[in-house]
């Protein structure tokens, strides 16, 4: 948060200004501080949201659901992807599903490519992972290292849940975890990387690692 404490403000004022500046600040201490604080709150995006109560309720309802397994924010988005794969794989159209993703995201990848050309390949990983809103929910956390991202696979446990709670009753979700890696994540990221103009090395696992190659 862009805020400033009373002590920090005084320190900054004393460090940055000369005697006259300090005198000026001391002459208007409360006003100056109040203005700064008002300014910082006014510009604080998160605090100015008027839908935070809905967000808190969503947090509560999600994390208070612990049976039959603990729900997380990636619960629903993960299920939507797994359900799509369950639809595509038996029909043999999973490659088309990946191609559709790459084609429909092409303008976005083009934008990332421009920033890679300007600022370097790290921008590719930022654009594919931590800077996309889908990943806010999909990846519980992302470990960021230069040239590398790693995150807990959101699909493994959820596919097991789908098999246990749904598949065993109606024969759906017959595919395996490696299919999620090999028929979705890996080709989708590699396809995106090609559009962006970089190469990736992907090491799937419970902690999936994606590196610039």
């Amino acid at each position: 948060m862009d805020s400033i404490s009373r002590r920090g403000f005084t320190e900054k004022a004393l460090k940055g200004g000369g005697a006259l500046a300090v005198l000026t600040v001391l002459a208007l201490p409360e006003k100056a501080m109040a203005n700064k604080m008002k300014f910082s709150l006014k510009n604080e995006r998160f605090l100015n949201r008027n839908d935070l109560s809905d967000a808190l309720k969503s947090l509560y309802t999600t994390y208070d659901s612990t049976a039959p397994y603990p729900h997380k924010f990636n619960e629903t988005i993960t299920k939507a992807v797994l359900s799509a794969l369950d639809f595509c794989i038996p029909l043999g159209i999973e490659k088309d599903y990946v191609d559709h993703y790459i084609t429909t995201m092409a303008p976005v990848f083009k934008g990332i490519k421009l920033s890679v050309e300007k600022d370097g390949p790290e921008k590719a990983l930022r654009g594919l992972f931590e800077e996309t809103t889908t990943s806010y929910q999909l990846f519980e956390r992302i470990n960021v290292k230069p040239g590398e991202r790693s995150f807990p696979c959101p699909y493994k446990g959820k596919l097991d849940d789908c098999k246990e709670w749904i598949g065993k009753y109606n024969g759906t979700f017959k595919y395996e975890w490696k299919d999620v890696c090999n028929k979705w994540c890996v080709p989708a990221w590699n396809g995106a990387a090609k559009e962006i103009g970089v190469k990736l090395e992907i090491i799937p696992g419970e902690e999936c690692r994606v590196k610039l190659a």
Partner: protein
Amino acid sequence: MNIYINDNKSVSRRSFTKKALGIGFLSSLAVMNLPGSADAWLDEKIMERDDLADGIKELIKTYDTTSPYPVKFYDGLVRVHLRNLDFAVKKGLHKEHADHYSSTLAPMIEKYVKNAIPIMGKDIFLWANFERTSCSYQLYEHIDIKENERSVPCPFKGILEYQNSTVGTYSIKWGDVCNKWCIPVWENFANMVQLKIKVEPGETCRITLV
């Protein structure tokens, strides 16, 4: 503690149990025999979670994103649903896509909802379909609850319009989301338990049991 929190009406865990027990001893026994139905609700164990920090960070990351529009919890999920639907429509498989999604959830509906309707009344179908399912915790920012009726702000419209006006690679329009996804899926669910629903799509979408 509320099973679902709503500005107008809420059903507490206690009042829900009361309602269930009020139907009669045999009915309450039947409810108890619905395997897993009770323990699948909110269970007041949030304070025992050791991953709350991750949840709170996700909340802040999501709601700190206000440009180009204020991002909400449903953003990622809605984008995946829209992408899936656009793919299915382009393939001419939207009916199969909606039917597949409904059929994956059929075991839950058969097992829990169908058995509960004779005991608790048909409103339990809407309860199960909307406020009870974990998909709704993120998808619907809030749900207005009336007996035999639910209304929800459409989570798809704004994001699809933004997507179509900026990226412009989807062929689907908002009406496709209503007619090729939401309505057929909900109608499939209703058919599974021999109920009929009326859906009035809109920025606030209304679903009524008929």
